[in-house]
């Protein structure tokens, strides 16, 4: 592999935030000596990338060398500090890492990355409660961090606190209303929390966002397949228990039968179009969906 193509791959990984640590270390190790003179301005982001990858696969000598070079170039950089913190996390006890981040925060209370590392350490050692408290505090200041909101929602969900999870997700929705995956997560959380009317609405919103540019004939893919499944599940659940409770007082969707029919149709479309490799799954889906009349009349369930 030539130098230029290796560099190109590495730059590509950096740009897309790809997590291919082994490959990065394999390609990056030969470049490590005198990286600055070989790579110019790219060297520093390369060293950061290599250090993270090396820590992940446990090649700590490489990581230490990267840190040494970075530390020489940027003696007081908060970014290098965070990297050294991650290096500490790799070998030392969590308490020492926490202490390290505490010191960073004492020096500069607006160091967002240090907060996040601290929270991730807390999460790793199982102090979920403290992690949630600190994450809430972090978000109170750095409100616009969408991924932190999603993380908070996941932490709440892991403790079965679905209402709080939904609240955290609603902030994520406010900040990134164009992302169907957050809507989908909201819907699934609502479904888990047994708020079926809310869940079906959110599943439909997710479809609405994900399918915005698709026509009627196009095949549902990605997020929308999952969302159609969700609609189908909610329809089934609503028709079984027409008076299911809704913690959020969401009104029942109108035309439930039509929706059920449409969801069945869309899921089947997705599976029919998947070609030969999807055929095996299709039988299962068909039997789950029940003998549906594709021509457009009422769908009957087999229970």
């Amino acid at each position: 592999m030539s130098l230029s193509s290796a560099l190109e791959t590495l730059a590509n990984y950096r740009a897309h935030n790809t997590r291919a640590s082994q490959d990065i270390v394999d390609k990056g190790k030969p470049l490590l000596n005198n990286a600055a003179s070989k790579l110019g301005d790219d060297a520093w982001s390369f060293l950061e990338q290599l250090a993270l990858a090396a820590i992940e696969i446990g090649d700590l000598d490489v990581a230490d060398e990267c840190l040494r070079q970075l530390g020489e170039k940027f003696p007081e950089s908060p970014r290098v500090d965070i990297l050294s913190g991650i290096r500490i996390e790799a070998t030392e006890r969590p308490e020492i890492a926490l202490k390290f981040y505490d010191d960073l925060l004492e020096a500069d209370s607006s160091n967002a990355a240090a907060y996040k590392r601290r929270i991730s350490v807390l999460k790793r050692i199982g102090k979920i409660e403290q992690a949630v408290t600190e994450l809430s505090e972090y978000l109170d200041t750095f409100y616009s961090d969408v991924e932190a909101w999603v993380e908070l929602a996941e932490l709440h969900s892991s403790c079965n606190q679905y209402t709080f999870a939904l609240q955290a997700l609603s902030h994520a929705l406010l900040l990134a209303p164009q992302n169907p995956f957050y809507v989908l997560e909201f819907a699934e959380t609502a479904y888990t929390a047994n708020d079926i009317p809310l869940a079906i609405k959110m599943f439909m919103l997710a479809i609405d966002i994900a399918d915005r540019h698709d026509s009627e004939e196009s095949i549902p893919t990605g997020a929308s397949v999952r969302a159609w499944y969700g609609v189908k599940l909610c329809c089934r659940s609503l028709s079984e228990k027409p008076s299911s409770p809704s913690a959020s007082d969401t009104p029942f969707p109108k035309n439930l039968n039509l929706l059920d029919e449409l969801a069945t149709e869309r899921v089947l479309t997705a599976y029919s179009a998947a070609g030969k490799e999807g055929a095996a799954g299709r039988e299962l889906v068909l039997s789950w969906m029940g003998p549906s009349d594709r021509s457009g009349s009422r769908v009957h369930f087999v229970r």
Partner: protein
Amino acid sequence: MSSPAVSLYLDPQIRDWVLFPITLVMILVGILRHYVVLLLQSSPKKLPKAAIREQRALARSQILRATSANSSIPPTFYRSISIHLAAAFDAGTYLKDGPPKGDAPSTPPNPMSDPAAMDGMMAGMKTQMVMMVPQMVIMGWINFFFQGFVLIKLPFPLTLGFKSMLQRGIETPDMDVRWVSSLSWYFLNFFGLNGLYRLILGSDNSAADSSQTMMASPFAGAGGQPGQPQDYVKLFKAEKDNLAFAEGTYSWMGDDVETRLLRKYGKL
């Protein structure tokens, strides 16, 4: 008026020893100024966490309000966020120094008493000084040595209106407007060299904007008024009303989503 027959003869020595030196000195001073400003710039001061929180609190409600007419979140969640923010704004939870105590009259903070604000103002003043001082020195130099010099003749005719612009420092009513005096040449350079600086130093250099910042006073031009403190108490009160307005226009995207979907797929 001036007749074309009356012509001046310009000594080539004037071109070599006055015209070129003035231009060269101005270019070099501009470049020098760029580097001096770079040296003087202090790194932006880090804000403590409480101050960031105060600054960004408004953004939270703005994000909520911006989409309220077509909101992506269900009514219960919208209302709970909205009520929470309104209560926090009312109580002053987000203020840097905590909620205000008692009924102390809220006076706008004095910029002179806040050291952080003073720092910002001093930085602006320093930059201004670097801009002004060399220009004054060059102008003095030209006035002292080359007062009343005629440097070049423009190759095109101009109306009398340009006389004050092109012949500053020469009080002769009858001279053709095409002759340019030394002081006017200085001003032409002063306003005209920006393009050249941009070529030499890149687009965001600090030499090029000299003519713009020169006009502004040192206090007003200090980089978007970093030192001007904002009265967050008032801003929060206003934002609370805005939130109430936004709640009136709230509607959820999910209200008729099933109809939209069914229509799209031809079921309705």
